[in-house]
């Protein structure tokens, strides 16, 4: 069944839509989820995706249903990963925010959303200008809460090199935030 026809089923709130969507894209989505999560979590994530698609169409009316569902799946998977690593992440974030403390905007001066958007823009710009390897190192440490040893093992690099690289990156980020 073509995407447009499946979308029509969603619009009519016909439950066959999910079966058709699963038949068309289930395997592809499961593979995409399994790249990020364990098998069990991947299965749950895919099931959550069907629900999200059901809840969002309508009002959404995507042209490319597969890409649309995959985007939802990836967001769910990344949220799940962040939640799974939340505890470990707290500690690493304290370390990062201590380093950047003087440069971070005062969240009580701006509105919360403005402050978050400003810092997000700076982070995105900073990460965009880094190599893929350094970017991954930084995010493994501060987004997923990995220890320096775990980051070194994941990247296949010596511990000292990772430690030094992360320190230099924090310094660079501090300079960017100051300016």
């Amino acid at each position, binding site marked *: 069944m073509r995407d447009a026809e499946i979308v029509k089923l969603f619009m009519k709130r016909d439950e066959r839509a999910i079966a058709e969507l699963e038949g068309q894209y289930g*395997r*592809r989505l499961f*593979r995409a989820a399994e*790249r*990020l*999560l364990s098998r069990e979590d991947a299965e749950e994530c895919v099931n959550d995706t069907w629900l999200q698609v059901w809840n969002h169409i309508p009002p959404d009316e995507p*042209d*490319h249903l*597969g*890409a649309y569902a*995959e*985007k939802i799946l*990836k*967001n769910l*998977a*990344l949220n799940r*990963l*962040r939640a799974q690593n939340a505890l470990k*992440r707290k500690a690493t*974030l*304290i370390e*990062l*925010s201590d380093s*950047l*403390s003087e440069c*971070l*905007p005062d*969240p*009580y001066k701006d509105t*919360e959303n403005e*402050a*978050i*958007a400003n*810092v*997000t823009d700076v*982070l*995105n710009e900073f*990460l*965009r200008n880094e190599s*893929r390897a350094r*970017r*991954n190192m930084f*995010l*493994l440490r*501060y*987004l*997923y809460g*990995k220890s320096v040893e775990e980051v070194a*093992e*994941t*990247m296949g690099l010596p511990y000292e090199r990772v430690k030094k690289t992360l320190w230099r990156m924090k310094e660079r980020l501090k300079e960017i935030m100051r300016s």
Partner: protein
Amino acid sequence: MNKNDLLEEALNHIDPKFAEAAALKMNRRNRKSAKSPAWQPGLLIAAAALLLALVGGGIFAITRMGGRPGNEPTKPTEFADQNDPTNPSQYNPTSPSQHDPTNPVSPDEPSSDAPRVDFMSEMTFSTDRKSADYLSSFLPFGDRVALYSSLWLPSDTDEAATKANEEILRSHLGELYYTGLMKWYMVDDSVNLKNLIREEADGRLSLWQFSCFQTWGGDMLQEEFPGKIIGDYEYKTLLATFYHVTSAEDIERVEILPTTGVRSTGNGTPAGGVQPILIEDPHDIQSIYDILRKMVCSGTGSMVDNAADVNSEDFFNAVNAHPALRSSLERDIRIVLKDGSSIQGLKYSAFQCAFYENGGIAYGGLGEEDIVAMNEFAEIRLEAMP
């Protein structure tokens, strides 16, 4: 909200592509450490044996992977010239914009991978391009925003080559396509928008090539191009919008050729030991079209991680360490359409389990069955994995 929470929220909202790439790295590492490495020495010995066979001028004698998807692909006796002229399309330029944003692009994929059309073969391209020589620019294209990358820019250091190239471009200036801060012209009288000629502020000319539709850009790009779709897209969108291909019936034949990619072969000459293959059977064309149409482009700088579906990370690393192997696992794809035009610059990599186009734009989202089928069509034979 304290500063710690602020940082946490900001990190939660970074570009999802960055977060995904790091997560993939993390998960791949987790899966690899759980896997038995018992067969790894065998793989390295196999890779070394393949390399020796190449060096000795021997033959690849390796086992086919998977079964045949359908009829035998037929072998051609001759091909049309790869520089066939293209036919006009029906695109109408949009109204002019007042801004022409340009961003420098990392030269990860040199333009020597780009297909050559007649007039380009007359031009001189530097082999020593620096990062400052790679520019990109956004242009409106239908309901999307197209990213064009510079192929050649006038230079103050090589006046003779610049003058000669400019004369060639001036003699191929076609209809005005778009006026922003600078003017963009089509090439000759064709309405093929694959290549455009730009008139710089000082009146000199430069040559550009379409890279992809823009898939990210934030508020600034949305402001610049209101109402345009900016996001990931399936290749069928490009096929329909750019090439007017809406079904397999628009395709005359598919040519699967030895790769000439500089990154694969080292010097741009066709990979040896690989025979061109011509796909003309309508069922086979339909199968290839079904694979191509659903692959997804996430734009520049995106990662394609299909390889984990079919090939292990160790295979990936082993082939990466031996470029001669890599060129045997990659093919240039040329799709000849029934209207006489052709789609060039598409490359298939059984090594990366993905397609690439226009100097490194990656297309992923292929499943294992798609890769197996493409390998069959391209007669790419992989060492049997234990």
